[in-house]
């Protein structure tokens, strides 16, 4: 590659990076300004103050929101990993009548947009008494067709001879699943885990419907709350909260990205 071409490419890459990252950097800078400076429309803070971060934790129960989001995301992640891996195991290793029909049923779930089902789901959760509880926020999302497919794809790369040998030597099917299949599929399990955690942490519409108090509300609804209450006066505080909320997912994304890339490459080799 010629030097000129490489140079031009770097210039383009840097310009694009600045444009893509600008909103995040902008929010980051605003979060260190005091109110007067924000209203003057500065971009760079004259002096960096942590007051907004302290205020964000004192004025709203941000810590409680973070805790709720963390618990809910963790529960959904575990639930999806367990439920999906069990189903994927049955679809790959067990042979029984009606399996293909059930598999078709799982495919069919991908055709249903979740928003089209939210009205009866809300009524169901209400009847179960799960409004304003972790149960209502997590259990409806435990089964995930995408998760079943992802894991099924990986399980299929495990040689069937291994399964047969285990059967012959008297290893139970569940033990085979637990001790051999799951450890061999670590990459896919981590990929699915990262995906689950990210999507649940960022969930907006469902928590808006099923929660109305601070005890269970997640960070996203917390942000909505802050934005509608403190508009125009305390943008610095709101931006501090934004930074706190996006930090965990950005870190998870950056940490999980290499893993994702590696998983992709392994898939290509097989």
């Amino acid at each position, binding site marked *: 590659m010629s030097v000129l071409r490489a140079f031009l490419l770097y210039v383009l*890459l840097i310009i694009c990076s600045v444009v893509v990252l600008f*909103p995040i950097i902008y929010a980051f800078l605003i979060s260190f300004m005091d109110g007067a400076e*924000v209203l003057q*429309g500065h971009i760079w803070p004259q002096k960096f103050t942590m007051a907004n971060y302290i205020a964000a934790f004192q004025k709203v129960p941000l810590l409680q929101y973070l805790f709720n989001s963390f618990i809910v995301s963790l529960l959904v992640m575990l639930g999806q990993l367990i*439920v999906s891996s069990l189903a994927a195991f049955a679809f790959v290793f067990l042979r029984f009548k009606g399996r293909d029909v059930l598999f078709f049923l799982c495919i069919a779930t991908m055709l249903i*947009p979740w928003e089209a089902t939210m009205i009866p789901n809300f009524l*169901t959760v209400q009847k179960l008494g799960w409004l304003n509880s972790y149960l209502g926020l997590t*259990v409806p999302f435990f089964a995930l067709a995408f998760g079943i497919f992802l894991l099924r794809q990986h399980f299929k790369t495990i040689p069937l001879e291994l399964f047969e040998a285990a059967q012959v030597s008297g290893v139970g099917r569940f033990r085979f699943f637990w001790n051999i299949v799951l450890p061999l599929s670590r990459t896919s399990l981590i990929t699915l885990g990262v995906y689950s955690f990210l999507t649940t942490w960022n969930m907006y519409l469902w928590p808006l419907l099923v929660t109305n108090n601070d005890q269970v509300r997640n960070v996203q609804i917390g942000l*909505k709350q802050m934005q509608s209450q403190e508009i125009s006066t305390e943008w610095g505080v709101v931006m501090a909260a934004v930074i706190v909320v996006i930090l965990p997912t950005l870190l998870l994304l950056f940490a999980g990205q290499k893993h994702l890339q590696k998983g992709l490459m392994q898939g290509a080799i097989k």
Partner: protein
Amino acid sequence: MNTSLSMKSSPSVLIRRKRAIWAVLEGMAYLLPSLILFSIFLFYPMLRTLYLSFYATDHQGNPVQFVGIENFVYLLKDANFLQSAKATLLFVCYTVPASVILALCLALMANEKLKGIGLFRTFFSSTMGMSVAASSVIWMFMYNPSIGIINKVLSLFGISDVQWLLDPNIALISVAISTIWMNTGFTFLVLLGGLQNLDSSLYESARIAGVGYWYQLHKVTLPLLSPTLFFVTTVLLIHSFQTFGQIDMLTKGGPVDATNVIVYSIYRDAFINYNFGSASAQAVLLFFAVLVVTVLQFKFAERKVHYQ
């Protein structure tokens, strides 16, 4: 098998049948959690939505009176719904092509072998970690007519006082711009993955033949990438039909319903106006819209595979 031959056939058939039943039971045990959850939170509510769409309902969502297709007939004549359908389609047209083209440019650049390219890949994928709520707060501030950065910059060029989120002619475009930004990370990652999986031997031959960059892009890269492009377009299409968070935070469907996209309209009808029948009818229409897109995707994807 010898033993079963020497025996009378009925016990062995019995054993085989017993085994088959046992196998079904065991398989079901592994599938039961998924099946139960899908039934309660996906199949039942979808059928229930279909059912409710044929009824007038009370404020608790109980069906009161069968009205046939009246909910649908009413919707198709209702100016509010038609506006909502129009806003949704416009929103799809604004966001999907722009998201794909932008992310494709980024992915093509980030696929070059350069020192430190990993850093740029991380930058470009970063919006995938941003939640809709956090992104909306930031964009709301940037769109602020008096202190937001966008109007500050525009005022340098003599353009002043654009009401990004309050002008009915601009609001939908403003929400679309912020959505394109939010889509960038995911679309970029998928397309970069697609580019990295392309067969490098074809590039070797192209290099030996000495073809130019643009020719190679046009004749080799894009045709080979088309399945991935198609996949990501479908996902974005379905995704943009389901847009809600940024509407709720930035415009609340306003001004004068200019940004009242379908899911927001469903939400408002069901959970603010308690009109579950009409909301269900809209949900059914949403279901069919997504169904059509998905079926088309399968049809086209199949053809692509045959032609390769």
